[in-house]
């Protein structure tokens, strides 16, 4: 058991912190300095003494003591170690058994339903909630990383005024003073800035606040918001409306710069619906077809059957040209071959009601008008597309950031409260929020980190994490969920509703009361419905009904001409979003789906453009808008539109934490005025420096090897076994077979369904205590992810096909790794698992040497020292059912053996055989498209058996005769025959 039985030793912690360099747990220094905390922990529970800084209230104590007990699972036991049992055990807790709670996580203000696994009060793992429309049981990297975010020791820990630690009550005092100040003038001079929210109860509070203070300024600041769709549909429907594409209903989909698989609050649901129309199972001979026209490489484009990369400002022309071919408006010439557009239009018309055009959120209102008109003319309403009232809170009369800053500069704002937003970092280059802020006498910031805005404000109050607060939230389709806490705020954070209530004068209102009141009185939930809502994680009946559309489509007359010269395409980073997750090491180190870049952003350019500008990957370029300039390394991306540079947002922060500070470059200052996503008129020059672009994949071609086998639907229909036929004749083996009477665990990965979203990788990291190693170690090739998603380009570099291949351990029946291990550290189990026994491993690395798939990972250095009792909160993040590996030990995918063994034990206790689907590895559970199927190959009824017998099934590197248990279904695409000769089809 971890060796911190003695009280917290600050000297040791500091020493370690200092010599450790920039790692998360260094900030224990600050933590350990508060005398109260020291004293409190000392007599509370020694083992966890080093781990937490929490408010000494009963529930928290209980949970954490339980955690201390569960800590037993983490590291090895020694003689005469101590056990700290509960004093008063909560009824529902059985030490050693995990509990699962339904809740929701807020990403960009929108809700994603989650089931959170909790070990004696320690949330350790997030899964999707099958009942929730936005997750459907799946999850993504940001959801998976939520637990790390919860324990992040660098989250702000205490209210501060002018950087002096204050109490919550002191803050309430400040709020009271504020109320006195603005009370008698209807809130004039007071401005409230909030981030994007969909929470009904918070919206209700804010509305009450605006009622109480009519002249107060409200600013909803969402740096990732785009108003094109809202404006267009406002024009069409006369009221705020949002598009809800029904990809499950669509036979032909045209994406006009829409990355519906990777972006937006509905991405997981869209991915599920899309793949449901793409996977070919026995008998099926039809598939949806996707045309993607995009301004930067996305995973949606990667999944498309036909893809054109164009500059973002050219999309309106393409929309108009396509509309014209559907009989709407006049034709204009577009950068996409006319013949191609003809074919697309024909295809759409053929599909009629099941044809769908989706416009990218960043595109202008004109494009959205065109798209709405096209869908209207296709008669897809109610079939392939619906329109709903937008779930997010955008009250009329709210002022823009620019307007607010103007007021501040004119001194018209005497008090500003920023609630869960970071404008000092995310403001565009032409909005100087920071210098306007100094003109405001009374500034308050409520957020999870002491970020740029917190540092610029006089007051800062820690905001509670989603896993430690009460609240509610809406999903992309309007469905509301209750957010329930799994643990008391670890670092004394407060819910947004508490702050809002305080502004309303309700200083002691608990978030739960506020929430319950709202849902009882406005939401109309009686206690039964409330309990049901908490249990299911979804409030039934809250899904928005589609608006019945009798509105005539409006065609936009003008078509903005495409820009010229280098255009900078700004995109949100898929994981860091607007930078709020920048201090999350899992997300920083998770390779970006296409570029595979980690720990930073780069200027992505097309090979041709790089050639013209004489840029090589790693050259630093200087991108500047008048006095705002950033420097960042170039990365050449095949399939990138020419004369365009893509830069991801969310990087280059200076005040988020040890993990995120100074990682990458901050592209927000490049924005100005209306140009938020497609920036032109920027100066791009080559700097003399070079900087490493750290990626996890260095070779991008399959070198003509039969690794990812793919074919068209036509080929599949003609010869279903085309993939198998390419295999060499099955060679025999000299070895007598080993009996496989029991389960034969196996996995099948459907490469048609896989969209390369990386959810599986992050889920694996969360489930299996996989460390992050930091940018330098990744650069050394020491990354630890057990599961990697290989991305290969096929065809031309200018518009290549993209294929993804998740590669976990193959669990070969005749494993080359096992035979060469000198110490029996990797051997076979009776159910066919390739077991890796960490505590037996001496680290010869011969197994990795002899693994043709190179799926083994080695602890080159000591990556998780905190597991040895150095006292980091991160130790509480560990999954107690999985060993934490020490330095010098080989590790690899185990098919989540801890879940298999749990399933086996449950089954034996119930005296049942292990049912198909009873055991699901983390990767399969997270996958939005259910591309990973796991089960018992010996069970004739199991899905994995059926898929293993599917004609598309093939084994990777079958010619080596390793007999992998993990097999693949060949990738099938559905290109339009009419276009086949026009451009190289995606499958190469």
């Amino acid at each position: 058991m971890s060796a911190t039985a003695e009280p917290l030793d600050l000297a040791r912690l500091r020493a370690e912190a200092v010599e450790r360099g920039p790692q998360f747990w260094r900030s224990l220094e600050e933590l350990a300095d508060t005398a109260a905390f020291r004293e409190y922990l000392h007599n509370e529970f020694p083992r966890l003494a080093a781990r937490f800084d929490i408010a000494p209230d009963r529930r928290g104590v209980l949970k954490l003591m339980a955690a201390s007990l569960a800590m037993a699972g983490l590291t090895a036991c020694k003689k005469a170690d101590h056990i700290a049992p509960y004093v008063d055990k909560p009824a529902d807790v059985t030490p050693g058994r995990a509990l699962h709670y339904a809740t929701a996580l807020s990403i960009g203000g929108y809700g994603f339903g989650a089931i959170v696994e909790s070990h004696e009060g320690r949330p350790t793992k997030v899964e999707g909630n099958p009942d929730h429309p936005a997750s459907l049981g799946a999850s993504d990297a940001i959801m998976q990383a939520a637990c790390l975010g919860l324990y992040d020791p660098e989250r702000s820990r205490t209210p501060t005024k002018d950087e002096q630690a204050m109490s919550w009550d002191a803050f309430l005092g400040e709020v009271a003073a504020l109320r006195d100040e603005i009370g008698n003038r209807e809130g004039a001079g007071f401005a409230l800035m909030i981030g994007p929210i969909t929470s009904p109860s918070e919206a209700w509070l804010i509305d009450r606040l605006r009622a109480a203070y009519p002249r107060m300024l409200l600013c909803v600041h969402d740096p990732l918001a785009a108003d094109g769709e809202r404006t267009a549909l406002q024009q069409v429907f006369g009221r705020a409306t949002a598009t809800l594409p029904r990809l499950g209903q669509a036979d032909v989909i045209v994406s006009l710069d829409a990355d519906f698989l990777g972006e937006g609050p509905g991405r997981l649901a869209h991915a599920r619906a899309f793949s449901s129309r793409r996977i070919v199972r026995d008998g099926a001979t039809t598939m949806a077809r996707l045309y993607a026209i995009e301004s930067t490489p996305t995973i949606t484009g990667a999944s498309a059957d036909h893809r054109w990369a164009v500059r973002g400002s050219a999309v309106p022309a393409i929309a108009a040209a396509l509309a014209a071919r559907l009989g709407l408006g006049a034709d204009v010439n577009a950068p996409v071959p006319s013949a191609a557009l003809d074919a697309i239009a024909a295809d759409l018309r053929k599909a009629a009601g099941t044809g769908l055009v989706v416009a990218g959120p960043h595109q202008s209102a004109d494009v959205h008008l065109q798209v709405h008109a096209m869908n209207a003319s296709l008669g897809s309403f109610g079939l392939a597309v619906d329109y709903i009232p937008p779930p997010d809170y955008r009250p009329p009369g709210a002022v823009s950031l620019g307007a607010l800053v103007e007021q501040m500069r004119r001194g018209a704002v005497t008090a500003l409260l920023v609630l869960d937003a970071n404008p000092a970092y995310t403001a565009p280059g032409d909005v100087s929020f920071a210098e306007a802020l100094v003109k405001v006498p009374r500034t308050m910031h409520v957020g999870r980190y002491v970020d740029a805005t917190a540092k610029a404000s006089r007051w800062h109050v820690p905001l509670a994490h989603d896993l430690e607060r009460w609240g509610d939230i809406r999903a992309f389709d309007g469905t509301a969920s209750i957010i329930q806490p799994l643990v008391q705020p670890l670092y004394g954070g407060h819910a947004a509703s508490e702050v809002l209530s305080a502004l309303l004068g309700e200083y002691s209102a608990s978030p739960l009361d506020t929430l319950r009141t709202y849902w009882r009185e406005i939401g109309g939930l009686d206690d039964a419905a409330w309990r049901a809502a908490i249990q299911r994680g979804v409030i039934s009946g809250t899904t928005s009904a589609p608006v019945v559309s009798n509105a005539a489509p409006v065609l936009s007359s003008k078509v903005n001409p495409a820009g010229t010269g280098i255009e900078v395409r700004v995109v949100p980073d898929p994981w860091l979003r607007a930078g709020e997750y920048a201090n999350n090491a899992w997300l920083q180190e998770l390779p970006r789906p296409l570029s595979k870049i980690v720990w930073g952003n780069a200027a992505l350019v097309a090979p041709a453009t790089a050639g013209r500008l004489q840029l090589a990957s790693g050259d630093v370029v200087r991108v500047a808008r008048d006095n705002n300039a950033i420097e960042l390394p170039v990365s050449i991306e095949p399939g990138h539109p020419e004369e365009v540079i893509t830069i991801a947002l969310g990087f280059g922060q200076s005040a988020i934490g040890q993990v995120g500070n100074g990682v990458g470059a901050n592209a927000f200052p490049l924005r100005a005025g209306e140009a938020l996503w497609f920036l032109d008129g920027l100066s791009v020059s080559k700097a003399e420096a070079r900087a490493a672009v750290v990626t996890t994949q260095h070779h991008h071609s399959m070198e003509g090897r039969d690794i990812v086998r793919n074919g068209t639907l036509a080929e599949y229909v003609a010869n279903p076994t085309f993939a198998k036929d390419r295999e060499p004749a099955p060679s025999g083996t000299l070895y007598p077979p080993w009996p496989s009477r029991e389960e034969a665990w196996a996995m099948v990965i459907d490469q048609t369904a896989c969209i390369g979203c990386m959810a599986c990788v992050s889920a694996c990291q969360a489930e299996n205590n996989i460390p992050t190693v930091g940018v330098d170690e990744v650069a050394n090739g020491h990354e630890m992810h057990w599961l990697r998603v290989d991305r290969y380009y096929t065809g031309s570099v200018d518009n290549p096909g993209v294929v993804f291949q998740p590669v976990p351990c193959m669990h070969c029946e005749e494993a080359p790794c096992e035979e060469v291990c000198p110490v029996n550290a990797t051997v076979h189990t009776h159910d066919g698992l390739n077991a890796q026994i960490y505590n037996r491993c001496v680290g010869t690395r011969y197994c990795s040497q002899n693994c043709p798939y190179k799926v083994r990972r080695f602890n080159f250095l000591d990556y998780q020292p905190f597991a040895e009792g150095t006292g980091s909160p991160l130790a509480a993040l560990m999954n107690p059912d999985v060993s934490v590996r020490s330095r010098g030990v080989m590790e690899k995918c185990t098919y989540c053996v801890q879940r298999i063994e749990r399933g086996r034990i449950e089954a034996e206790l119930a005296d049942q055989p292990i049912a198909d689907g009873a055991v699901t590895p983390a990767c399969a559970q997270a996958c939005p498209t259910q591309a990973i199927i796991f089960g018992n190959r010996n069970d004739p009824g199991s899905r994995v058996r059926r898929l293993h017998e599917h004609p598309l099934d093939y084994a990777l590197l079958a010619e080596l005769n390793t007999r992998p248990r993990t097999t693949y279904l060949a990738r099938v695409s559905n290109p339009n025959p009419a276009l086949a000769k026009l451009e190289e089809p995606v499958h190469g």
Partner: protein
Amino acid sequence: MPQLFRPRANALARWIVLLAVIGTIFLGTGATFYLRSDFDTGVNHPLAQPVPFSHQHHVAGLGLDCRYCHTGVETSAVAGIPPTEVCMTCHSQIWTNAAVLAPVRESFASGKPIAWTQVNHVADYVFFNHAIHVAKGVACVTCHGEVDRMPLMMRAHPMQMEWCLGCHRNPTPYLRPPADVFDPEWSPPQDIAAMQAALASHEKIDPSKMTDCYVCHR
């Protein structure tokens, strides 16, 4: 040429060679025995506890069932150390001011857990599940020894890998009817061997499944 060494040098040299050989053999065997000795494994060494809790008194004397305190044993991997409140259910009534129970009362009052000293723990990096063992008919006393005869808790078995494997390779002789696993006084009937064989087949206890590394190491 004068002699370089005295006559006894010969005998001396041969003795030294002999002793060296014997010594190495002795050290080798000694080490293997030491690793298995009670001295090293801590078997039969009662450990001091904050409260001198006697299983003998509570189990043999009062006849408390194991599950009264170790509630998780049938459902969870962890049998569980009883919360202070469990102690207080009785000791708020009896021995309410016994000196030895002061730490218990103090813990209940302060909410600060009693720091018991761990006695039984499996080898490092082992994931042990109580529920399945109990369900399959492995009695508490089979691993924990006759706790009803232990005034102070102590280890009954070394709990090293070879000890675990001893049973996992040949489980049958260690089985008893699952109904009796909590009975420390249980005495095997005449036909115990046949009964155990029947149990093994009925519970589908198959050593070939129980010796995989992954059964314990994950």
